[in-house]
């Protein structure tokens, strides 16, 4: 056997030292991440194949039964569909509005910062307060929204959060209002990155404002749009708080979403197995969307280079 060389070259030593310094900087955050994110995530994977009621009693391995149970549960399937419905109602309006706002506010005007701030404001407002205030606005009998609708001649306005057909629309409206400011900032940042020379050249060629938007701005923003689309979709699948505050999943279960279902299974029924299985399904959905994003990102960045 050859003797193992234990002494390191000065170069290796330096590399190790600088790595250690690097790790020591990450460590505080990493520990927090491990305790509050990573370990719970692993734990819910384990729970999803177990039967457990949250007590001291030992867990019981049940294999994929939990998944079979939730997929056989009407309420789970409905919650899944409601989540998709919410995503469809929310993603595109948010996308379009935030893009339009960004384009409108991408001018050097006096006081533009005030408008930008005003539109960003809902994003930082507390979701509980936002939900409560919008609930009052949507109040079907004497709420301002329905008063206005009656004023412009709609004699039977929707009953919003107490109407199975409109409750999800109401939640989506609030969601669009709340989050468009954030994505507007994302778009604004991207707009600043578009070279002014493109517009100049187009201007010389006689392009009007709309044509510039259609043939320069929107194509140049494609990677951003893609990013926003993916982030919005993921966000929609994770929705819980707004629904909880505005309707509590009602009327009936018309606005019950995936996370509301998981919450109820875990903390009303104390069935952590099926609840975790639901969470894994959610995880799978988000994972697929993220993978699409990764693939897309590569494609866009290649196209632009």
């Amino acid at each position, binding site marked *: 056997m050859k003797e193992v060389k234990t002494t390191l070259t000065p170069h290796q030593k330096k590399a190790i030292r600088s790595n250690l310094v690097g790790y020591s900087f990450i460590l505080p955050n990493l520990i927090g991440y491990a305790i509050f994110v990573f370990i719970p995530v692993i734990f819910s994977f384990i729970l999803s194949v177990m039967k457990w009621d949250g007590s001291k009693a030992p867990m019981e391995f049940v294999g994929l039964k939990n998944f079979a149970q939730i997929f056989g549960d009407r309420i789970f399937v409905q919650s899944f569909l409601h989540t998709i419905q919410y995503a469809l109602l929310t993603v595109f309006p948010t996308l379009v509005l935030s893009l339009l706002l960004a384009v409108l506010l991408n001018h050097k005007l006096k006081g533009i910062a005030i408008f930008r701030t005003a539109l960003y404001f809902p994003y930082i407002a507390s979701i509980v307060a936002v939900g409560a205030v919008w609930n009052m606005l949507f109040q079907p009998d004497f709420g301002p929204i329905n008063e206005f609708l009656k004023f412009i001649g709609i004699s039977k306005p929707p009953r919003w959060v107490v109407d*199975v057909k409109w409750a999800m629309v109401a939640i989506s409206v609030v969601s669009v209002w709340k989050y468009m400011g954030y994505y507007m900032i994302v778009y604004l940042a991207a707009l600043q990155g578009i070279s002014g020379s493109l517009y100049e050249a187009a201007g010389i060629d006689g392009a009007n404002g709309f044509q510039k938007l259609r043939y320069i701005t929107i194509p140049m923003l494609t990677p951003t749009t893609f990013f926003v689309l993916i982030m919005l979709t993921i966000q929609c699948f994770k929705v819980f708080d707004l629904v909880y505050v505005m309707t509590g999943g009602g009327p009936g279960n018309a606005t019950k979403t995936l996370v509301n279902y998981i919450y109820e299974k875990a903390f009303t029924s104390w069935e952590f197995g099926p609840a975790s299985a639901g969470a894994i399904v959610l995880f799978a959905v988000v994972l697929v969307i993220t993978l699409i994003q990764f693939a897309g990102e590569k494609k866009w960045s290649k196209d632009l280079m």
Partner: protein
Amino acid sequence: MKLKKVLAMVLAAGMVCASLTACGSKTAESSAADTTGATTAADSSKAGDKTQNSGEKKVLTVTTWDYDSSPQFQAVVDAYMKENPNVEIKVIDTSADEYNNSLGISLSAAQPDPDIIWVKDMGSMLQMADKKQLLPLDDFMKKDNFDTSVYNGAAEQLQYNGVTYGLPYRSDWYVLYYNKDLFDAAGVAYPSNDMTWDEYNELAGKMTSGEGSSKVYGGHNHTWQALVTNWAVQDGKHTVVEKDYSFLKPWYESALSLQDKGYIQDYSTLKTANIHYSSVFKNQQCAMMPMGTWFIATMIQSRAADETSFNWGIARIPHPADTESGYTVGALTPIGISAYTDQPDLSWDFVKFATSKEAANILAEQGVFTGIQTEESLKTIASAQFFPEGESNIEALSYTHYTFDRPLDPKIEEIRKALDEVHEMIMIKQYTVDQGIEELNKRVAEIKGW
């Protein structure tokens, strides 16, 4: 250069330590107290019990909800500490809405605290019993020859699979509140203690007056499903856990008809405007309101604080046509002991006190009804300042039959969720009554595995 690096590493290490200690400070403290219990007994919860020296305080931990705003726990906790100066009671308080969740999570940790558990609803008692988180009390009761007859059968009704996990602490049942001033102004006789639900509906029609924001409704149904289903189970022939819910039909039809005629406020208005029943009654927007006996204490406090000044009264809850007066619906608030407690004997002593006649009288002074109904405690409640005057009000507090609003079923919390959802759908007319009943049959069968 090198110095800078070392400094950086030290700083980073410091941050790590800080984050670790920040997370773990609580456990570190209590374990330190455990080992050095003799010296730091006074300020630590567990230590007092370990050392048992005279003059040192034993500490009991209890869980409550809305401790500050409701006298129901405070009065008894204070009285116990007064009688047992060597015991200190530590209260872990949670808001009522979050109570079951946070209690469930803290019990999952299987820690010696809390010792005493006030159970917010009987359904959650069963969930805890199923998870073996509650201590069976039968051995203690046998040892002490504990007499449960004072509870008039309520202790036996609380048994689950023949085991006692909790004793009745407070007891509430439904009565009919009415606004005397509104009845006087309308020249209509007060609701009597013997009224059928049909007569009540008729009276609600008579008492409805006005338009718009000054409208006074004859009756008021809060948004709870209980305010329809209770009357369907009042005769004791059904419970809210059944294979066939068609017995609910006449009661939903009656509630919907009250709503359609405008004798009670619209469900969707109450729900979307998030209106609390107490504000409706206190603002004199309704002439009558079926509600639990807990509301008596609220009204007495409201009068005492000069928040309201009108006269109000109580009548027995109306009854179905096929039963006589005296049938009511109610629920118990049990008190139990955590299975993980490290001082079971002291905990039992507290539970015994909290469910004793003595505690019943203390609570009666606060207008709170307990598991023990004696002439004396009734008199105490009726003699409270601002309790409505007149014999009929005292008679209204008596009942002959007491049905639980929900049966002791281990799946009751889930079934309640289904009941709530269907109730909402029927009341906002997204379901017909028949559709609602069909959905309920299906949902409950799924939950129960029928």
